[in-house]
């Protein structure tokens, strides 16, 4: 152990860091931390477990993650098993009864939007087909508002003194978001029907929003290197179509999409999947602005 003095100094330094926020929000993903920031203003201190450059499927365990969940008033995650590899462990280690699933202090965003790709029948022999549907809901900005409404209600329930302020911030956000949605919708018209290939099947909500047509995915099965046959089939499919981009998220390896890009002569495109994923995507609004900018850059 260190000397008592240095431990005390360290503790003082650690304790001096927090802002004077009333309510501590722990978000699994940056988009929900950003949303909590929009809806909580100065009353809320929100941190995200991963950055925009990291893969939310996996996480390296750090002591501060446990400490933060232990101290949190509200945990906001996507849910639908996106964080299944680590969130249950983290919640158990943190041992904070206020933020366990089922409590007011635990919000799973996927519970408040309509999920796509829900399998009709979960067949054990068929394997681990995702029973809840595709969890990558935040790539469609229309999914943000329903989550915002619920998040704001939770903030008010946990911190009743701030309820009026939370209601005001929600109304303010709703107006700005609706205006942005209309702006984006106008730009989306030019992209409708554009064909794309994706790296990982995590863009279906964006495709639904913009009317993009997903030709195929580089990963036939998540985490398993593609087979020669799958890539050949994909190339053949591209040959008879006209995809404009091979889309991947910032945390995914560039190699598969660069490989296909070189073969097929189609640009590989990194799109922001969350706040901070690429340069310029610094807040929730900017995520979709940059997404549209980049897609327009390759559009016919």
């Amino acid at each position, binding site marked *: 152990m260190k000397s008592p003095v240095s431990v005390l100094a*360290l*503790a003082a330094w650690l*304790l001096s860091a927090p802002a004077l926020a009333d309510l501590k929000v722990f978000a699994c993903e940056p988009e929900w931390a950003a949303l909590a920031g929009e809806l909580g203003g100065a009353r809320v201190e929100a941190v995200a477990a991963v950055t925009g450059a990291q893969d939310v499927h996996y996480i390296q365990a750090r*002591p501060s993650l446990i400490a933060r969940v232990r101290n949190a008033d509200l945990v906001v995650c996507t849910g639908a098993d996106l964080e299944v590899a680590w969130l249950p462990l983290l919640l158990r280690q943190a041992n904070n009864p206020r933020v366990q699933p089922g409590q007011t202090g635990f919000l799973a965003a996927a519970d408040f939007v309509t999920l796509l790709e829900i399998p009709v029948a979960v067949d054990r022999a068929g394997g681990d087909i995702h029973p809840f549907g595709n969890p990558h809901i935040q790539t469609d900005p229309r999914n943000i508002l329903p989550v915002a409404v619920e998040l704001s209600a939770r903030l008010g329930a946990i911190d009743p003194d701030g309820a009026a302020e939370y209601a005001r911030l929600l109304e303010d956000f709703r107006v700005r978001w609706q205006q942005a949605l209309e702006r984006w919708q106008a730009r989306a018209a030019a992209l409708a029907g554009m064909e794309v290939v994706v790296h990982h099947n995590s863009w279906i909500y964006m495709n639904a929003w913009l009317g993009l047509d997903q030709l195929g995915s580089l990963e036939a099965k998540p985490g398993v290197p593609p087979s020669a046959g799958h890539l050949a089939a994909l190339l053949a499919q591209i040959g008879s179509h006209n995809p404009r981009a091979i889309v991947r998220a910032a945390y995914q390896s560039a190699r598969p999409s660069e490989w296909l890009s070189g073969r097929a002569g189609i640009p590989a495109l990194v799109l922001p999947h969350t706040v901070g994923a690429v340069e310029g995507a610094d807040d929730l609004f900017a995520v979709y602005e940059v997404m549209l900018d980049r897609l327009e850059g390759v559009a016919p």
Partner: protein
Amino acid sequence: MTLSTLDWSILGPATLAGLIVLATHVPLGREVLRRGIIFIDLAVAQIAGLGVIATAAMGWEVHGFAAQLSAFVAATMGALLLYACERRFKESQEAVIGVVFVLAATGGILLLANNPRGGEELKDLLVGQILWVDAHTLWPAVLISAFVLTIWSMGGRWVKGVGFYLLFALSVTVSVQLVGVFLVFASLILPALASRHARHGLATAYVVGGLGYATGLLLSAIFDLPTGAVIVWCLTAWAVIIDLMLPHKSLSEV
């Protein structure tokens, strides 16, 4: 940060897990080093994982007890195979272990290729992170470690032969799930390496292991770094320090 992360309730279970892993891995690691089969732990862990994947590929449910059982069965079979190889091709045992490792790893890929289960979860089923250890789930590991240590300390011809491989398979299957492959490898090799010339070898190795885990956990909490990775670096640092501090035997004695 709103709470000091130097919190015993966060670091405590991880410390206990580290001590349990060290208890068996220090003596086993010295034997691994003596036999010159450094990568046997990676091979055994990979075979245990292959066992779970194979069970899933046959359409069985693999969680909890069933996963443990298939991991142990596979690891035991792998251990017996490696023992047979040691008897047959003693001089190429290290190479055989390497081949077994890549076969087990790629065998998993091949099994998963025809399986609609994504496989990411399956592959990670047997790889733990030390910080996620729950104190209540440590009991099976304590019992298995005590069992392994008891048999090991009884010694005898069996332990020098096939017994070593079986005890090793059992220990590594448990420890990989607690702390992950990197820490298992480091816990086996680094204390053994640091103590190879020491007069009180076993005691020295335990000291290196204990210091490595303790400082690693502390630094991880202070600088908020991924815990397992910091411990590996601390184990290495202590292994070097202790090795430099100890009087070395002259070359003629080695």
